[in-house]
């Protein structure tokens, strides 16, 4: 058993304990530290076989075991990955998680850990951040002159592409996939290595020939498997971008909605904060479907718990801390120069508005 310690901007401190490839996570590698003492940790995740402590639990669907502060799911699956998970101390930190992967083909490959990180660990980081009054948003973010611009979208819609285009125009990088919004209305990057799939490869991301070939092969596998096997290539933004800001004030938010409209017209309009908040909540729920299910199950047994109010608390945080400059932009499926130009125009106009 190995232990890896991670500290995300002093907001979430966690430990991964298990096989080396699990504890030494690539996804969280930007936040790896040597050691964090037990009393400082917010989250401890063990990947190992374990004996669940299920006494005095309500049993739902013969699958979930719930009592106050405790959650156990006997078996869950995603594609061919199967796992059981036990979460202790759910409503008061530190949270203890035990995960056991059931035998499957994926288990012997690295990819099972990558999937687990997305299915269980990311949502728990999101949950702990919410407890600490910070909102994790599925968004990319760039900055210029201490002003942050956030791009909210579902996966593959163009968050990363637009951010990289604009970085090419002199903006600094903050984050590509997750952005943290603090009670001080600052945005902080939570930088996980980029998920490069061929559709978001552009000239601002420099990759060598071997990487390019690798991407093409993976894309071929995706097509041959009828879109079942989707292999990403991970590239750490910190290795690519030179101008990186850690933290900035949020200036404007863009919601990107890709559209397959034949005319391919790009439309940009302002929307209210209330509406954006709803968009973000659904984005986050879509991002964490298993976690959302676990919340629902736990709330069923304990309808007055902190957990049951999670999405409401999250919404309130967004409501309190998002700024008013909000645009919805209808974009084509494949991001072109026009999109970047229109966004850049909006950013510059926005600046003029305030000067006047």
């Amino acid at each position, binding site marked *: 058993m190995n232990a890896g310690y991670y500290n995300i901007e002093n907001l979430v401190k966690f430990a991964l304990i298990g096989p080396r490839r699990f504890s030494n996570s690539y996804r969280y590698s930007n936040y790896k530290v040597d050691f964090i003492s037990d009393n400082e940790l917010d989250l401890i995740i063990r990947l190992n076989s374990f004996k669940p402590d*299920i*006494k*005095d*639990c*309500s*049993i*739902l*669907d*013969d*699958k979930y*075991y719930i009592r106050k502060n405790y959650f156990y799911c006997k078996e*869950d*699956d995603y*594609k*061919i990955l199967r796992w059981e998970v036990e979460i202790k101390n759910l409503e008061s930190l530190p949270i203890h998680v035990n995960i056991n992967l059931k035998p499957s083909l994926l288990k012997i490959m690295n990819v099972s850990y990558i999937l687990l990180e997305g299915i269980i660990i990311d949502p728990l980081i999101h949950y702990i951040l919410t407890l600490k009054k910070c909102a994790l948003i599925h968004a990319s973010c760039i900055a210029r002159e201490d002003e942050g611009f956030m791009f909210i979208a*579902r*996966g*593959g*819609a163009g968050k990363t592409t637009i951010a990289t285009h604009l970085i090419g125009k002199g903006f600094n990088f903050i984050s590509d996939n997750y952005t943290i919004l603090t009670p001080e209305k600052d945005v902080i990057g939570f930088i996980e290595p980029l998920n490069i799939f061929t559709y978001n490869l552009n000239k601002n991301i420099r990759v060598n020939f071997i990487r390019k070939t690798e991407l093409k092969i993976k894309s071929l596998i995706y097509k041959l498997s*009828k*879109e*079942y096997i989707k292999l990403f290539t991970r590239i750490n933004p910190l290795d690519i971008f030179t101008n990186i800001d850690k933290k900035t004030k949020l200036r404007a938010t863009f919601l990107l*909605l*890709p*559209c*397959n*409209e*034949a005319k391919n017209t790009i439309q940009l309009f302002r929307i209210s904060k209330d*509406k954006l908040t*709803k*968009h973000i909540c*659904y*984005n986050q*729920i*879509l991002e964490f*479907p*298993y976690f959302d*299910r676990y919340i*629902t*199950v736990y*709330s*069923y*047994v304990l*309808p*007055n718990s902190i957990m*049951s109010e999670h999405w409401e608390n999250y919404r309130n945080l967004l409501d309190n801390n998002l700024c008013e400059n909000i645009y919805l932009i*209808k974009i084509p*499926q494949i991001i072109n120069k026009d999109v970047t130009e229109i966004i850049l125009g909006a950013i510059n106009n926005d600046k003029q508005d305030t000067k006047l």
Partner: protein
Amino acid sequence: MTNKILNYNIHDILKIQIAREEHFDLMRGLDLELSYFRSEVNLEPDIYFYIGKFIPSNKDCYLVDHRYYIRNNYFYCKDSLGRESWEVEINSFEYGKTVVNYSYSYKTWNSKALISRFSIETFLLRPLIYYKLSERGYFMIHSAGVSKNGEAYIFPARGGAFKTTFVMDFIKKAKFNYLGDDRVILHRGEVLSFPAHLILFNYIYSNKNNEYLNLMDKIRFVNSLRQNNYYNVNVPIVKSAKLKLVCFIEKTNKSNVIIQKLDLKDAIDKLIDSTKMEMSSISDNIVGFSLGPYYRYMQAYSYVFPESKVAKYWDELKQNYKAILKGIPIYQIIFPEEYDDRVFQEILDVVEGGL
């Protein structure tokens, strides 16, 4: 290939027509679930469900996750769950008469394929029925229900809480009538029956004392289906009764039975969570559990249209549950993993005594 057309009429509230290409289908999936509502007359359907190859008209759509095609009142996607994959187009996703096109393709041919094929259809249609009923002021809930002297007693519960077994006990041991062993419909002060999988329930009711089927039982059940005795049912079903009492049932691994009163607010929250689980479950007597697709479709649609009826669905449902349950006594019975006569007696006492 000719199309086989099946009509279902749910209490004259919701009419469903299913058209499918003829094929060998051992389990007759959808038919099995909704057999009680089968109608021999061709109806003007509120939900038209076509199963077969189709060409989607998914132009001018927003794209979510590279997968969901969404525009106002329209949804289309190619989707997969485990090893199964399908393609579905839902016209009038948000309001109006719904037309569903659905096609299924095998990724791998396996012995499970026959069963899972009907499952996916069922798990698309089932949440759609929830949604469409509530549009009309009728609210399906995951609950057992029995009645006596025109008064209904409902038992909301999650899966595995012996709903089927104790409903049988109510009928056999205490002469109650049947409203549903899995779902019932609430409407104002009334409970309407929803005998889902009635044939299966009828088989268990006629041959067994509990809901657990061993392999021989399953073989006998499938064999009995071949005789096509759809209307030959022994269960004493009533169409509707007046809502008298709500009693949540929760299975635990504690050793004793606990009976307690439940707040209106808590009861509503529980019902909402339960309905969410129902709409996102692949739960069935035959197939295992996993995350079902329809709830996700609703969320993808809500992501694009956060002010749509779909997005407001849960908030409105809460209000409606509240209006229905207000003034009705609500209890919760927590009982041990082992269901026996003692547990049934406790439930019966609550129902008969009103505590």
